[in-house]
C-alpha cells in the first residue's frame, strides 16, 4: 500500500472497490415539470430567503408569563401563548393566496428560552460553558450546516448568525440575551438538569452526551414532533363552536372530580386553557385579515386588490366557522399547522393523510363547479411553498446534526379506508402532481403501500420518484398496521383504527384514528393523529461507538473520557464480546431513559401542549391535555439507534478475523482502530467520505489488518454469515427496548432511522472493524448497505434486509441510489414499481430512491451556486443540496449507485 494515496485508488488497485466514476457527461433527470407562474414567483423568493429568527413571540410570551406568577401552570401557559399569538405582526406578500407564517418573516422562526436558554447566549458566557459541561452542547461541536441556500452560517452587515443557521437583526441580540437570562433556572432544560442529576447513573449519562454516544436530550430540544397532527375539530366545528363547547364542559366539570381523585379536577383548568388559546388563535388570524384589508385599501393593482379582499374574507370566515370551500379548508389546516409549530420546538409535525382529510371539500367544490382541478393544483403548489418555508429553531446540534435544517412535515398518501378498501383518491393524484410541478422539500410525501392500491396511483408515485426529488418514500402499510396493533393494542386499538395509520416525521409509524366529518349534510370518515409525539425518548444511540468502547474497556480515546465503568474482561469469546456490548447498551438506555423521563416530566408540568392537545382525540372528550394522557394513544416513547450496519459489519469482521480464524488478537485489532489503520483522520482530509481518506506517510503497519477488515463479510449481499448477526441483533434490540418504561408508564419500542445523525456521530467515532475510517459518516438509515459494499444487486440487499421481522420496530430505513438511465421510459417505471413491490412483499418497511447521477452531485458540491434547487433524499427526508452539511453530502455521493434494477 503506497502512502499518501486516496483510499479509492488503493482499493481499486486491489479489486476491492466499486468502480471509479468516469468523466463522461452527466445524465439529466427524465421527468421535469414546471409550477404555475404565481407559484414560481413565490418559490423564487424562497430560494433567495435567509432563515431568520426574531424575538417577537418570545418577548410577548415571556412578558405575559412573568405577569402571572402564582397562576395554575396550564392557565399561565395558555395566557402566555394567547398573548404571543395575539401580538404577532402579520405580513402578507404580493401574489400570495395562502397566507400566514410563523413570524413576520418569509422563512421565520424564533427561540423558545422557556425550553432551553443556555445556548442563546454568547459562547464565552458562563451559561454556554455550563451547557458544554453537561454534554448538551457536544453535538453542536460536531454538526455542520451546508453553507449555501438560506443558511446564515456567518454574520454579515447588521445580521448576526445564530446557531450556525439563523440570521437575526443585530438590534435584537441584546433582547435575546435578556430574554434568555430571564429563563435561567426555570427553563425545562435547567429544571430538568436539576432533577436528572438525582438519577444514580447521571455521571455516565453526562459522559454519554459529551462523547456523542447519544445525540441529544429530547425533553427540552424537541419535546413534540414526529407525530401526526389532527385538524378534525376546527374543520368540523370551527373555532367559535369549540369555545362554546369548552364553556359548556367547564360548567359540567367545575368542582367535579368525575371519579378521578388525581387529575379529575384538572379538567376545569384544561377547558379554560383551551378557550384562552383558541381566542389567541382567532386574534392571530383576524390580525392577518385586518392586514389583508389594509393592503386591499392601499393597492392600486385591481387584481391584487381583489386577491387581498379574498384573503380577508377567507380569514374572517375561518377565524370563526367550519370552512365552506376547499381553499378555506386548506387555509385552515395550514394555519393550524403553524399554530402548533409556534407552540413548541417541533420537528416532524406531519400533516397526515391530507388528501383524505380535505377530500370532502374537494369533492363538493368539484361537483358544484366552484373550483377546477387546475385551481386546486395551484393551491396545492402554494401549500408546498408555505410548508417549505417552515423552519425549526433549535441548537446547532439538533437543527444541523440531526435535522439538516429540515422539518419533516410528511404527508401520507394511499393506505386503506376504515373499511379496508384503497383510500387513494383523485385529490391525492393532484398532491403527487403538485409534488412534481412544484419541487420543494415540504411537505415530503410518503405512500402507504398496500396491495389494494390501484396501479395508476402507484405509477403516479413512481413518476414522481423519477423527477429525482427524493419523494414519495414507500412505506409498507400492512407492516405499519401490525406494529401499531402490537404497540397500541393495550390502549384499545383494533384493526379498523390501525388502518388510519400515517407517518409522523421522516418515517415514524404513528397511531391515528378516524373521526366522522359532516359537510353540508354528507358524512365522511377522515383520518388524523391520535397519539403522543414520537420525537421523545432516547435519541439516537451510536451503535458503532458503543462497540468501540467495548474494545477500549469503556474509554473514549477521542475525548479521553472514561464513559462506562471498565468491564475489565478479556473478551476471550465472541459471545463474551457480544454480552459486554449488550451490557453497555442496556446501561446507556437505562440512564438515558430515566434522565429523559425527568426532562419530559418537567415539560408536561410547566410547558404542556395546549394547541396540539385540543386538536387531538381524545383531549377534548377527556378534559385532559397531553401531559395527563389526554391523547388516545400514549405509548409512543422510543429508543432510536444509528449506525446499525457499521456495527453489524464490524461484529462480522471481529467474529471472523479474531475469534474464528484467529488471524489477529483483539488487542492488535484495537490498536489498529486507535491508529485509524494508518490513515489520516477525516478532519484532516476535510472530507467525511471513505472515498477521500488519505494514507499517512510511512505507516504500513496496519495494511494487512486493514485489507482483511475491508474484505470481511458485509451486510447487503445475502451472505448468511453477516445476515445472521443482523437478525440476532434486531431480535435482541426490539425486545430490549420494550423493557424500558416511559414517564407515562408505557413500554418503549425501537425506532431505527438515522435522520442526519450518521454524519455527526460518525465524526465522533474512531475507525471501526468493518474498515470504516475515523470520523467518516456511518451508513445512512438502518437497512441501507454501507456505500460500495453491496455487490450482488438490489435483490440480494433486500434479502439481507428482511431476515428479521420489521413489524417489531416502529420503522426501518432503506435508501437506494439509482442512476436515471436504469429506470428510463415506461419500462423503467414498471421496473421501479416491481422493485418496490418486491421489497414490500418480502416484508421490508420502507424504501426510497435517489434517482440522480452521482456526477451531478459532485458537480453541485463544487459549484453549489448552480444548484440552488437541487434536492436529494438524505435519510428519511428530502433536503436542498446546498443546505446540507458536508458529511452528509459526502455520504450521499458515496452511496452505491445502481445502474440496473
Amino acid at each position, binding site marked *: 500500500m503506497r502512502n499518501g494515496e486516496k483510499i479509492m485508488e488503493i482499493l481499486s488497485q486491489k479489486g476491492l472497490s466499486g468502480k471509479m466514476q468516469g468523466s463522461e457527461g452527466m445524465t439529466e433527470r427524465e421527468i421535469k415539470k414546471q409550477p404555475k407562474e404565481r407559484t414560481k414567483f413565490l418559490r423564487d*423568493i424562497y430560494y*433567495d*430567503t*435567509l*432563515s*431568520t429568527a*426574531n*424575538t*417577537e413571540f418570545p*418577548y410577548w410570551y415571556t*412578558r405575559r408569563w*412573568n*405577569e402571572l406568577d402564582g397562576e395554575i401552570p396550564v392557565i399561565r401557559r395558555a395566557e402566555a401563548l394567547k398573548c404571543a399569538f*395575539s*401580538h*404577532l*405582526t*402579520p*405580513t*402578507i*406578500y*404580493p401574489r400570495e393566496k395562502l397566507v400566514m407564517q410563523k413570524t*413576520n*418573516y*418569509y*422563512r*421565520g422562526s424564533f427561540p423558545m428560552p422557556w425550553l432551553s436558554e443556555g445556548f442563546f447566549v454568547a459562547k464565552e458566557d458562563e451559561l454556554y460553558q455550563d451547557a458544554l459541561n453537561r454534554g448538551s452542547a457536544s453535538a453542536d461541536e460536531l454538526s455542520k450546516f451546508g453553507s449555501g441556500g*438560506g443558511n*446564515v452560517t456567518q454574520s*454579515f*452587515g*447588521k*445580521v448576526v448568525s445564530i446557531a450556525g443557521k439563523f*440570521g*437575526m*437583526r443585530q*438590534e*435584537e441580540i*441584546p*433582547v435575546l440575551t*435578556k430574554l434568555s437570562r430571564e429563563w435561567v433556572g426555570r427553563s425545562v432544560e435547567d429544571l430538568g438538569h436539576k432533577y436528572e442529576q438525582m438519577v444514580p447513573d447521571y455521571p455516565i449519562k453526562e459522559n454519554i452526551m459529551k462523547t456523542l454516544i447519544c445525540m441529544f436530550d429530547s425533553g427540552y430540544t424537541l419535546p413534540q414532533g414526529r407525530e401526526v397532527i389532527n385538524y378534525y375539530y376546527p374543520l368540523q366545528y370551527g373555532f367559535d363552536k369549540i369555545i362554546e363547547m369548552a364553556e359548556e364542559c367547564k360548567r359540567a366539570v367545575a368542582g367535579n372530580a368525575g371519579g378521578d381523585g388525581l387529575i379529575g379536577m384538572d379538567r376545569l383548568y384544561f377547558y379554560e386553557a383551551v378557550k384562552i388559546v383558541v381566542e389567541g388563535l382567532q386574534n392571530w388570524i383576524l*390580525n392577518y385579515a385586518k*392586514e389583508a384589508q389594509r*393592503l386591499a385599501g*392601499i*393597492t392600486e393593482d385591481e387584481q391584487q386588490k381583489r386577491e387581498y379582499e379574498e384573503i380577508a374574507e377567507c380569514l374572517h370566515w375561518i377565524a370563526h366557522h367550519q370552512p365552506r370551500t376547499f381553499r378555506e379548508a386548506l387555509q385552515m389546516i395550514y394555519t393550524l399547522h403553524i399554530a402548533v409549530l409556534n407552540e413548541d420546538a417541533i420537528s416532524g409535525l406531519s400533516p397526515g393523510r391530507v388528501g383524505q382529510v380535505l377530500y370532502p371539500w374537494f369533492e363538493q367544490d368539484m361537483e358544484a363547479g366552484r373550483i377546477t382541478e387546475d385551481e386546486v393544483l395551484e393551491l396545492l403548489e402554494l401549500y408546498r411553498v408555505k410548508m417549505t418555508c417552515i423552519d425549526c429553531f433549535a441548537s446547532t446540534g439538533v437543527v444541523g446534526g440531526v435535522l439538516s435544517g429540515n422539518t419533516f412535515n410528511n404527508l401520507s398518501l394511499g393506505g386503506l379506508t376504515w373499511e379496508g378498501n384503497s383510500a387513494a383518491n383523485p385529490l391525492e393524484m393532484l398532491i403527487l402532481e403538485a409534488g412534481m410541478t412544484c419541487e420543494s422539500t415540504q411537505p415530503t410525501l410518503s405512500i402507504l403501500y398496500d396491495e389494494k392500491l390501484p396501479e395508476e396511483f402507484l405509477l403516479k408515485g413512481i413518476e414522481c420518484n423519477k423527477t429525482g426529488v427524493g419523494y414519495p418514500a414507500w412505506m409498507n402499510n400492512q407492516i405499519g398496521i401490525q406494529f401499531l396493533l402490537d404497540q397500541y393494542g393495550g390502549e384499545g386499538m383494533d384493526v379498523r383504527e390501525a388502518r388510519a395509520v400515517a407517518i409522523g416525521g421522516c418515517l415514524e409509524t404513528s397511531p391515528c384514528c378516524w373521526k366522522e366529518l359532516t359537510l353540508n349534510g354528507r358524512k365522511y370518515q377522515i383520518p388524523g393523529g391520535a397519539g403522543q409525539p414520537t420525537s421523545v425518548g432516547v435519541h439516537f444511540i451510536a451503535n458503532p461507538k458503543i462497540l468501540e468502547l467495548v474494545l477500549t474497556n469503556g474509554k473514549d480515546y477521542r475525548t479521553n473520557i472514561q464513559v462506562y465503568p471498565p468491564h475489565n474482561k478479556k473478551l476471550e469469546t465472541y459471545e463474551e464480546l457480544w454480552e459486554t456490548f449488550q451490557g453497555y447498551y442496556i446501561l446507556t438506555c437505562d440512564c438515558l431513559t430515566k434522565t429523559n423521563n425527568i426532562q419530559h416530566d418537567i415539560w408536561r408540568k410547566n410547558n404542556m401542549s395546549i394547541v396540539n392537545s385540543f386538536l387531538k382525540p381524545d383531549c377534548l372528550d377527556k378534559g385532559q391535555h397531553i401531559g395527563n394522557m389526554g391523547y388516545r394513544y400514549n405509548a409512543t416513547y422510543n429508543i432510536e439507534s444509528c449506525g446499525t450496519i457499521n456495527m453489524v459489519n464490524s461484529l462480522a469482521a471481529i467474529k471472523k478475523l479474531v475469534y474464528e480464524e484467529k488471524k489477529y488478537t483483539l488487542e492488535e485489532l484495537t490498536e489498529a482502530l486507535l491508529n485509524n489503520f494508518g490513515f489520516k483522520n477525516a478532519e484532516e482530509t476535510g472530507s467525511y467520505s471513505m472515498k477521500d481518506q488519505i494514507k499517512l506517510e510511512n505507516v504500513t503497519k496496519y495494511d494487512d489488518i486493514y485489507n482483511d477488515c475491508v474484505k470481511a463479510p458485509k451486510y447487503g449481499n445475502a451472505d448468511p454469515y453477516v445476515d445472521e448477526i443482523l437478525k440476532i441483533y434486531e431480535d435482541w434490540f426490539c425486545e430490549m427496548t420494550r423493557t424500558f418504561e416511559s414517564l407515562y408508564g408505557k413500554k418503549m419500542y425501537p425506532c431505527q432511522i438515522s435522520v442526519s445523525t450518521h454524519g455527526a456521530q460518525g465524526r465522533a467515532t474512531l475507525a471501526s472493524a468493518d474498515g470504516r475510517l475515523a470520523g467518516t459518516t456511518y451508513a445512512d438509515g438502518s437497512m441501507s448497505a454501507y456505500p460500495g459494499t453491496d455487490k450482488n444487486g438490489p435483490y440480494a440487499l433486500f434479502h439481507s434486509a428482511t431476515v428479521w421481522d420489521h413489524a417489531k420496530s416502529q420503522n426501518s430505513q432503506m435508501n437506494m441510489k439509482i442512476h436515471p438511465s436504469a429506470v428510463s421510459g415506461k419500462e423503467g417505471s414498471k421496473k421501479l414499481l416491481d422493485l418496490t413491490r418486491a421489497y414490500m412483499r418480502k416484508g421490508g418497511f420502507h424504501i426510497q430512491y435517489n434517482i440522480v447521477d452521482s456526477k451531478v452531485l459532485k458537480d453541485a458540491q463544487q459549484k453549489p451556486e448552480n444548484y440552488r434547487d437541487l434536492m436529494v433524499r438524505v435519510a428519511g427526508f428530502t433536503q436542498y443540496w446546498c443546505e446540507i452539511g458536508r458529511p452528509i453530502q459526502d455520504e450521499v455521493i458515496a452511496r452505491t449507485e445502481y445502474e440496473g434494477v
Partner: protein
Amino acid sequence: MEKMNGKHDDCRNFAPVDAAKGICRKTNTMIFTDTDVCDAMEMMPKCKNCSNFQGVDKDNIGTCVGLKKHGWTYGELIAVTCEGYRQV
C-alpha cells in the same frame, strides 16, 4: 423620527422577507433593509415610536407603561398589534 436615520423595516410599506431584505410595496421590488429610505416612507408602529416607551438604555431597551402592567420592552419591537401603542 429623522427619516434618513431610519431603515427600511421602519417603513409600513416594507414587507420583510428576511433579516437582510424585503419587498417594497411601493415599487414591488426586493430591497436591502439597511439602505437609504425614500420620501414615501410611512412610519411603522414600533415601541421606539410610542409615547409609552420610557427610560431607554444603550441597547434600546426601556420600559413600556402603555399596558395594564408595566414591563420592559425594546425599541425595535413592532407594535401594529399592540393595544397600548400611542404614536409619538
